[in-house]
């Protein structure tokens, strides 16, 4: 199994989720993160003080899939999360040793 971690722009989450669902993915885990990279942050000012905020809000999606469909999933994410502008994000792929479904104790591909 592969674990696919995708960092994307927040407003793309719905599109990505729908596309993945259509592609037959039934589970994923999502969290809010702050990204630092080529995309510039923004300025803020409060009375006399100015701050440059270098971190940009991002969404991270974790999807665990069978080895066979990993490529499809990556491509689906690329297709739907892309705007073509700096800051679209990255996808990290790791090998997973095992998966367990807590409810049933099933392991491996059957746990997905």
């Amino acid at each position, binding site marked *: 199994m592969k674990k696919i971690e995708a960092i994307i722009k927040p*407003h793309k989450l719905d599109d990505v989720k729908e596309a993945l669902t259509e592609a037959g993915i039934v589970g994923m885990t999502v969290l809010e993160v702050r990204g630092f990279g080529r995309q510039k942050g923004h300025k*803020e*000012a409060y009375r006399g003080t100015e701050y440059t905020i270098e971190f940009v809000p991002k969404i991270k999606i974790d999807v665990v899939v069978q080895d066979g469909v990993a490529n499809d999933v990556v491509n689906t994410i690329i297709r739907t999360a892309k705007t073509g502008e700096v800051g679209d994000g990255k996808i990290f792929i790791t090998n997973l040793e095992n998966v367990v479904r807590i409810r049933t104790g099933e392991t491996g591909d059957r746990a997905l």
Partner: protein
Amino acid sequence: MYCKRRVRVLSLVLLAFLIACWGVEGMVLAQQATEAPPAAGGAPPAGSPTTPAAPGAPPAVPAPPLKIDTGDTAWLLTSSALVLAMTAPGLALFYAGMVREKNALGTIMQSFIILCVISVQWVLWGYSLAFGPDKWHLIGSLDWVGLAGVGLEPNADYGATVPHQAFMIFQAMFAVITPALITGAFAERMKFSSFLVFTLLWATFIYDPLAHWVWGVGGWLRNLGALDFAGGTVVHISSGVSALACALVLGRRIGYGKDNMAPHNLPMTVLGASLLWFGWFGFNAGSAVASGALATSAFVVTNTATAAAALTWMVMEWMYRGKPTVLGAASGAIAGLVAITPASGFVGPMSSLIVGAGAGVFCYAAVIVKSKLGYDDSLDAVGVHGIGGTWGALATGLFASKAINAGGADGWFFGNPAQLKIQAIAVGVSWVFAFVGTFIILKLIDLTMGLRVSEEEERTGLDLSQHEERAYGKA
């Protein structure tokens, strides 16, 4: 370089201010001169629909100098403070709680800065246009510009027992909240600079004339006998209908109907709604411009109608959708406050229950219907203020009773069907005037400076794009 420019700007402004300071000396002196002598109105005190004598009060004797009553003045000042609290923090929080987090400050700012802009506009020319000596039954003259002639003596027309300036500042708070109500329609997408221009034009060309027609001595709707105790037409229909024009001209928010646009902070919204309820006692009961029986009656019906409307909205929702919601109860309360506003000085408590229940029914229906029609009145300014105000103005024509206010009129249910017709005329006129006028103003601004923020700014949110601030900072 950049830094130097800033220093230069700062010095220039300081200098300009000092010169201005000196320059106005003459003007101030001139004004003070007119302030000192009692601005005793030439006309004898007349019972008027907006400031009727309390039932049972002795008939006004003409001529003797008017005397300030400390109790009446205390109530009017208290009421003015209460109505201020309606706009900020009341409305500011009520609306801000309903938008997404990224627009929280931008939404608050709209109410807050309207309070500032109109407070100044009103003193400079707004009050004169609305309440100044009548011209052609259509507008006040410029005689009272800069509050010239608006002094601390009572004015017989607008409150025979309170300083004229007390009436002026009470009315200022009405002029403030009305454009603020509209901001619900264009929330989350209007450019701040354009919004400022819109506010100033709208106040001057829509609100001030309409206030004159309905409340100004000589105004043609007032002469017609239209009843509007605290602003059903002037405040709520005008803002609600203008809100419709705004929603149509500005178009929908990006992602409308697709993205989750759930309120970011409903406790904030309920806080705002509660403060609106609290302040509305000043709005309605203060409109008696005196402390006594009429103010009390207005206070009682305001509370009763509001409660009835909140319950009605909640029950409607419970039946229609399956759950009673907190936002629904709060919205219902506001709808009830809106509807009872024009009627508050003319109807009794049992009537007010019906006025309130009607507000719950009609405004809830309006909100449901809106979501089918597809225009994006983001925070339902049309459904609540337009529909609620219309129902209230008409209901005044049904339930008004001279038993409550001898200075008013009877409505249909009290034997005078003609009053409903008069009310209908006032409603129709307000609708057309507000819609057309607002439409023209918006189109003018759209052609010149543009109304909406850019797509990227809208996605980022008003807080960062218009103000470079965030509502909730993280350390």
